[in-house]
């Protein structure tokens, strides 16, 4: 288990207020709109800026604390942008059954970093099941799914993110 890394929040992005307002407007009237709003903000900024909480709270008639509590609950929402390349390696049982632990070790070695770390332009993190259990081990590189993750696939990933 890892404790969420304490990183200084980034400086607020440009046009934050306008973007937040536009996202909020797009979801006006929708029931329970908080998650869709947070997803949209993360899509815009790569993370959910803390500076947006008050505006979200006001629009949804929530408190700031409620918004923060929701952001903090879900592993997807980031407090700071991830690196340019995000590699998610599946650690769930089906992948383990196909040598997942060894795959993890090889990938860590190829990238020179451990699961859960961000180094340079690469974030390597765990994911628990991508639904690719019959073509395990599996990973996700950016938006691209990779099944049957073997040595050559690992090398290709390392190549890709080094570029």
């Amino acid at each position, binding site marked *: *288990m890892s404790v969420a890394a304490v990183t200084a929040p980034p400086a607020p992005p440009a046009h934050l207020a306008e973007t937040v307002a536009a996202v909020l407007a797009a979801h006006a009237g929708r029931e329970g709109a908080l*998650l869709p709003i947070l*997803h949209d903000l993360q899509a815009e900024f790569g993370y959910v800026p803390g500076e947006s909480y008050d505006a979200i709270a006001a629009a949804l008639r929530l408190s700031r604390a409620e918004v923060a509590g929701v952001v903090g609950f879900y592993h997807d929402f980031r407090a700071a942008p991830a690196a340019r390349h995000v590699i998610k390696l599946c650690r*769930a049982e089906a992948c383990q059954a196909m040598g997942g632990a060894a795959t993890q070790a090889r990938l860590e070695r190829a990238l020179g970093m451990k699961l859960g770390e961000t180094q340079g332009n690469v974030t390597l993190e765990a994911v628990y*099941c991508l639904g690719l259990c019959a073509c395990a081990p599996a990973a996700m590189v950016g938006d691209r799914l990779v099944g049957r993750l073997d040595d050559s696939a690992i090398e290709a990933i390392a190549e890709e993110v080094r570029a």
Partner: protein
Amino acid sequence: MKIYVPIDAAARACGADMVAAAVVSAAALKGIEVELIRTGSRGMVWLEPLVEIETPAGRTAFGPMTPADVPALFDAPESHPKALGLTEEIPFLKRQTRLTFARCGVIDPLDLAAYEATGGMAGLRRAVATKPEEVVDEIAASGLRGRGGAGFPTGIKWRTVLHAKAPQKYIVCNADEGDSGSFADRMLMEGDPFTLIEGMAIAGIATGATKGFVYIRSEYPDAIRVMREATRIATREGMIGASVLGSAHGFDLEIRVGAGAYVCGEETSLLNSLEGKRGVVRAKPPLPALQGFMGRPTVVNNVLSLAAVPWIMANGAQAYHDIGVGRSRGTIPLQIAGNVKFGGLFETGFGITLGEIVNDIGGGTASGRPVKAVQVGGPLGAYHPVSDFNLAFCYEEFAGQGGLIGHAGLVVHDEAADMLSLARFAMEFCAVESCGKCTPCRIGAVRGVETLDRVRAGDAAALPLIEDLCETMKLGSLCALGGFTPYPVLSALRNFPEDFMPQQEAAE
């Protein structure tokens, strides 16, 4: 020339997109006019990417394909090294009873005309012409039970919602398929989304709910994309919307996306998440059927439960009920995964034995080493030894053996598996995914990991403590996450005690 290449995520993960591109370029090179149709997956994942070519005798299959294999398709298909013959004759497919997945892998998932042409929409047509109470009766008579894992009779749930009085009711489809070894929901949503939409619309008509949500986990971007597009098409074509198939029934559908929380597969935390809250579990009662989304009556059903509905409505409750054994009626889409030769989705009637599934259908391990354990029902399911291979696959028989069939995912492990590590992983997974609301799960999972490390280190006091902890978690937890984590742990301990003995060469 019609060529079919899957667009399913597993196929794409194995290179289907590159194969499709190769088809286009090879055809162009050879000057052959090709109609390339991207379909869902047939479910034979070990053959993905599986390419099919239409012939007068039927579709012939080739796989697993690589881009390099493609040009030869246009030369002498029958003698292609990856030729598999007529797709429907492949034993894995032929042996199935494919009701829910009948169209998956066959048609373009977003081709509504093809959907209708292959029997789609018949159930919904019947539903709009039937009294809600009778639709509920039909589902109840079919014996359909919740495919999410709990196996609660769907008809009873619908009846509760039908009779609840409220200004607004909801249908919520639980597509937060997070169990390792499970991928049926994903396959269906990617391969035949209209079936799910049709099932939800029928549920709406049956219960008086006019709004539906599909809650899909964010780890399934392909499914999210296909479901969104299908919803748009279905609404545009009047399949759903203000007037379902021109009837007085309205049914609006919205696709919502999770945000990385396994526990949101639990229905009450899913509802909290859908409401924009922390995805913590709610105590029951109140039942979601009475106080669900926004405190209003809500049907929460799994993808596979809802996707079974159109077939039942189209073919009648009896036809469905005729399949299966005991109180487990109809078909179950098995998902065979992990260390297995023929991994994939296999839809069949209840009652097949575990041994048949693993050895006959799955073909044993991929590694070729003997099977050691099979985890059935996801990360909260028990590890079954080979001695359990005579168990018939149905709700009651597995429950009787301290297991569960869950979402019908099976993960096969060969003899290299270290059961203590897998038990530890079960606790670790619970710790990672615990919502934190109840104490046994919140603290217990962390202590479970630590105590299993003591077992590993040879601490004799740790084993009885693990047993006690498992009892506390099993009976004390608020939901199945904490409550069922002891199943894999205890089953590993009971069935493979040798792995829990002190080891000299302890972990490095």
